[in-house]
């Protein structure tokens, strides 16, 4: 495998969790219910997937329960936002802290491990090992040996794009994001739509979490998501809430992460290299802010997307 092929391979595998989480985040963002809690949703799913996969020696059942746990947390988030009237931003931060605390506690309680747990001899999620790929030039090597989750991701990207653009549901989501009162007037309950989008983001973040803890090896470490949920949030903002744009942004952050893994072999201190994805996120948000500012000077229509993060208190 050439250097470029290796880099693309690493970019894709690093991007998978970010892309998945971004995909759900796009739905929430478009319905104007920015999901700050995606980090926590990923984390809880990582733990549950690891635990169930290790217990039953089956990563797929692990992933299933990971998704369930993540959607349950998304439901809790929806509950406190809409039933208890909590500020959605603060409640999202609460979900992150809660997931971090619960997984930490369970790690210490169940496995008696202070930092990380990696059971040995447990099946991981399968790899793509289709023989025909070997005959393809360039692309073959890039796809061969990736996790099967890549297939799920691609399917979900296409599905997300179609749902957002061509279905009734996607239309409702966009409508709720643009004008909540108008949608209420035509008989759509914006709160139901928002809850649905939160659950969607729980679903995709759940797959992403399972990928993190059960794809290359079965392992869980405290706060192992390491900001990927927030990086995904950054991609939805950078991608201006469009499915394709946000996925591309997520790929960019995946590339930054792949580069940071690749550069660790060089003489640059490893700590600086590891900062790369975070720096990339800050730069990307800055760029998106600048371009948005330039665009809004010419175009003030409702189509111009504005992220919904404000604090009302």
């Amino acid at each position: 495998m050439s250097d470029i092929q290796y880099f693309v391979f690493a970019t894709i595998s690093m991007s998978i969790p970010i892309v998945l989480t971004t995909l759900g985040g796009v739905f929430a963002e478009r319905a104007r219910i920015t999901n700050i809690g995606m980090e926590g949703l990923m984390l809880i799913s990582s733990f549950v997937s690891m635990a169930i996969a290790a217990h039953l020696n089956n990563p797929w059942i692990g992933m299933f329960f990971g998704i369930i746990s993540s959607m349950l947390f998304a439901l809790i988030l929806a509950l406190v936002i809409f039933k208890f009237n909590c500020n959605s931003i603060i409640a999202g931060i609460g979900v992150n802290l809660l997931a971090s605390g619960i997984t930490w506690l369970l790690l210490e309680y169940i496995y008696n491990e202070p930092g990380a747990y990696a059971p040995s001899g447990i099946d991981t999620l399968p790899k793509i090992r289709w023989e025909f790929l070997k005959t393809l030039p360039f692309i073959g090597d890039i796809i061969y040996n990736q996790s099967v989750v890549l297939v799920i991701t691609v399917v979900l990207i296409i599905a997300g794009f179609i749902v957002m653009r061509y279905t009734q549901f996607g239309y409702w989501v966009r409508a709720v994001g643009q004008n909540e009162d108008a949608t209420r007037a035509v008989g759509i309950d914006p709160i139901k739509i928002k809850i649905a989008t939160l659950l969607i983001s729980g679903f995709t973040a759940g797959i992403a979490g399972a990928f993190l803890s059960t794809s290359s090896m079965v392992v869980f470490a405290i706060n192992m998501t390491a900001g990927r949920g927030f990086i995904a949030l950054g991609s939805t903002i950078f991608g201006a809430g469009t499915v394709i744009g946000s996925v591309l942004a997520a790929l960019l952050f995946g590339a930054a992460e792949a580069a940071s893994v690749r550069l660790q072999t060089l003489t640059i201190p490893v700590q600086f290299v590891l900062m790369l994805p975070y720096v990339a996120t800050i730069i990307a948000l800055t760029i998106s802010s600048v371009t948005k500012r330039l665009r809004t000077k010419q175009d003030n229509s409702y189509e111009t997307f504005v992220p919904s993060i404000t604090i009302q208190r």
Partner: protein
Amino acid sequence: MKAKTLLGKFETFISRSLPVLIGLVISFVIMLIISDQPFTAFVSFIGGSFFDLYSFGSMLSILSILLISGLGGMVALKAGAINIGGEGQLYLGAMTAAVIAIYLKLPAPDFVVTILAILGGMLAGALWILIPALLKSLLNVNEIVTTLMSDYMAPLLTAYFVNNVIRNPMSGNAETVRIPQTMQLFKLLPPSKLNISIILSILLLICLQIFYLRTKSGLKQQMVGLHPSFAEAMGVKPQKVIFTSLLASGAIFGLSGALVTLGIEYRFLQGFSPGYGSLGLTIALMGGIAPIGILWSSILYSVLLYGATKMQVNADVPFSLVFLLQGIIVLLVTSNKFNISFGRREKNE
């Protein structure tokens, strides 16, 4: 608005405390499930700080740090910005203070160096939030994501320095050498680590209380936090106000980091903080984003934080329970469905 009668104050106190009570109940249920001696665990958790004078002093030394962190979180929230990167600023402040105290040689008394170390820590905290603050005020870049990203970067930066530049070669841990005794903060209740930073923290609380209640700039800060467009109409520049509040927030977190180094740890140790910085936001929210409320919530949290270490020793419940509790509290703390009133109806509402 509720009248500021004693009863009214009590009611707000109760409704503020409800998320905490719910969190404590859930914690207790968890103890019942996972522990063999849940009552020992619960008593240690709640009362561990009051078992003896040493515990009490240690709790107060944690309080001095958490109170300052809570105020740091508050300063940003007052202007409507959210700084969730407090932990990172605290790390940088702690490391800078250690570096100054260890390496700065001045022909001056040692306490001058200590003061410089504290100021240096504040400066480092402020510098660490400078870029997110600039981006927020100039370009309206989401400060939650940027402060969080810098939060992940700070421990990496300090890890680089403490491993490669300022490491104590005699130690097996990633840590600096100890700060000379003469530069450590004065102990108030030896052998516990309670030191004069508790007085500093109370002073800061009073200053901020006066600032927000009695000064024009304090009013501007709150105006921007509550009604940015109104503030703008009144001729206040929200960008400028948010910028200064974020910078001040970073500096205060840096201060609490410096005080940890100079008063509790006496060195910079990678991974020294059990969330002193990230608790800042929690405490500020629990305290209703007001100085006096933050005093109460920081007392509560330092009791629990110290109690958790006792709990881990006395019973088989891990320390990480406090993080779970923190999550539940933050999740519910902004709810306005917990407003309760005893017996009388609200008029004019």
